[in-house]
C-alpha cells in the first residue's frame, strides 16, 4: 500500500536565537559557521547573505524530499532573522563523521540510501556531490559506516526557471566523488526513483510550499518549480540508468 506522503514533514522547523561559536568550518566553500541554539544543539549555519536565497531554497526542498525517499541527512532547521543578516539554513552537527573516502566503500551500512541520494541529485540536478558532501559515521568501529548526505545547496532546483529550462538533463558527473560501490546502490536508487515517479503534482506542490515561502517566492516561480520537478520525478526511473552508467564510466577512467 502506498504511504500517504502527508505523514512526512512538509515544513522545516524554525529555531532561534543563535549563538555564534566563532568557528569557520573546515572544508567550507561557502562560509559555513558553527552556531548553537539555547537548547544546546550545535548546527552548521549557512547565511542567506553569504550563500543566497537560492541555496536556502534548494536545501529546504532537498531536505523534505529526502524524508520521503528515505535518505539519511542531518536534522535541519531555518532561522528567520530580519535584515541585514537574513535567514540561515541550519544543518545539525552530527557527531563523529568523516568525509567520503573510496577506501570505506565496502563498509557502508546503508548503501540503498546512498543510491537514493543519487536519485535525489538527479531529480534536483545537483552537480556538487564531492567527497565532502557525503559523510560517513562509524557505528562503533570503522568497518560499519552509516552514510549521511549533506549540502544540496548548489542544486539547480534553487533556480526554478533554470531547472525548468534544463528539462530532463542529467547532471554532469565531472566533479562527482569517486569509488561508490555502484552495484550495491542500484536497488535503493531505483526504489527511490519509483517513489519519486509516483508523486503527484499536488504532493510535490505541498513539499515545496514551505521552502518557497521561506525565501518569498510567489506562486509563479513555485508553479514553475513544481512542474519542472514533476517532469523530472516522472522521468527518474528512465534517467537513472543513464546517470549511473556515466558514474561507472567516469570511475573507470
Amino acid at each position, binding site marked *: 500500500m502506498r504511504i500517504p506522503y502527508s505523514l512526512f514533514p512538509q515544513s522545516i522547523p524554525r529555531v532561534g536565537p543563535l549563538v555564534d561559536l566563532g568557528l569557520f568550518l573546515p572544508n567550507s566553500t561557502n562560509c559555513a559557521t558553527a552556531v548553537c541554539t539555547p537548547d544546546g544543539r*550545535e548546527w552548521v549555519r549557512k547565511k542567506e547573505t553569504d550563500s543566497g536565497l537560492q541555496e536556502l531554497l534548494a536545501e529546504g526542498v532537498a531536505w523534505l524530499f529526502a524524508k520521503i525517499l528515505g535518505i539519511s541527512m542531518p536534522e535541519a532547521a531555518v532561522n528567520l532573522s530580519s535584515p541585514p543578516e537574513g535567514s540561515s539554513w541550519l544543518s545539525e552537527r552530527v557527531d*563523529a*563523521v568523516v*568525509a567520503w573516502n573510496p577506501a570505506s566503500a565496502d563498509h557502508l551500512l546503508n548503501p540503498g540510501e546512498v543510491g537514493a541520494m543519487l536519485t535525489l541529485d538527479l531529480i534536483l540536478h545537483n552537480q556538487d556531490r564531492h567527497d565532502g558532501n557525503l559523510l560517513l559515521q562509524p557505528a562503533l568501529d*570503522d*568497518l560499519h559506516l552509516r552514510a549521511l548526505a549533506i549540502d544540496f545547496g548548489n542544486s539547480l532546483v534553487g533556480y526554478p526557471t533554470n531547472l525548468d529550462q534544463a528539462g530532463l538533463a542529467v547532471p554532469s558527473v565531472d566533479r562527482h566523488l569517486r569509488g561508490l560501490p555502484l552495484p550495491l546502490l542500484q536497488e535503493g536508487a531505483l526504489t527511490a526513483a519509483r517513489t519519486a515517479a509516483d508523486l503527484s503534482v499536488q504532493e510535490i506542490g505541498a513539499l515545496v510550499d514551505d521552502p518557497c515561502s521561506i525565501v518569498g517566492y510567489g506562486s509563479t516561480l513555485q508553479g514553475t518549480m513544481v512542474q519542472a520537478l514533476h517532469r523530472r520525478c516522472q522521468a527518474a526511473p528512465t534517467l537513472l540508468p543513464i546517470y549511473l552508467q556515466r558514474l561507472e564510466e567516469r570511475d573507470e577512467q
Partner: protein
Amino acid sequence: MKYRIVHFMPDFVSGARYPIAALLSNAEGTRVVRSTHLPGPSCLGSKPRAAAARLVLESIERSVEFERVPLGAGPHVVLGEIRPVPSAVEDVEEWLHSLLGPSELGPREREERSRQPQLRSRGWRFFESWHVQSYVRKSFDPARDYRGWLADQAAALSSITHWVPGRERVMLMEPIYPGRDSLKADLEEVGQRLMAYHDAISRASSSVAPAHKELIVYVLKGGAEDVRLEAIGKLEDALPTPEFSVVDTSNLPRTTSFLENIRTIGATASPDLFTSDS
C-alpha cells in the same frame, strides 16, 4: 622546511583539539607524519569518535595538502599554524613525533589498539557488504575441512583465513589491508602461507581432493595509493599466475568477477565439505 599539526576536533562547543598527525613540507613536496598513537575512545569520549579519527587520518594521507584542509577530510579536522622546522633539528620525524605526544603506549591505549578491527574482520566485512558471506567460511582447517583432503600435510600448514567450498572447486583466500602498520609482515606471512599450501596441494594424493583449487589474496581498499600498488606488485611477483590470484578489490570489474566466482562455487557446496565451526 615547514610543518603544521593536524588536529582532530570532536565537537564545536568545547573546541578541544587532539593532535593526530603533522604535515611536513619541503622542496620535494608534502608528507604526513602520523602520531605514534591516536586518541582512543577514552580520550575522545566514544568509540565512533576514535574510529572517525582513524578514518580522518587515512583521508588526509590519501590527498595530502599543506595549505588547506583537503576537501575529503571532513568537519573534524583543524590545521595548526604553519611553522618552520628549527634548523637545529636533525631527525625531523622524531622531532615531530615528540611534538605529537609520547611514543610509548599506556596500558589503556594498548588495550584499545588491540580492539581495533583485525585483518580477518576486515576481510569478512568485505564479504558481508557484497552479500556473499553465506558462501564464505571462516578459517580453513587443513586437517579436517574439505573431507580432510590435506590432512596428511596439515602439520606443516596453518589455517587459511577465508575459504569457499564447492562440489569440485575450492577457493582458499587471504586478505591484505594496505592501511595496516604491519603490512610488510602481513605480506610475508600471507606469501609464505599460500606457498606452503601450493606445495602441499601438489603433493596431496587424496581421492577426495577438489578438482580445482584456487589460492587467492584479496587486497582490500585503503592505505595510501602508492603503498597499495606496491603491495599488489610484490604479491604478483611472489605469487605468479596461474597458480595464484591477486584480487585488487578497488578494481570493480575484477571484484565483480571474483564475487561471481564465489557465488558460483559456493552454490555447489554441501555440508560435508566443512566442519561446523568453520
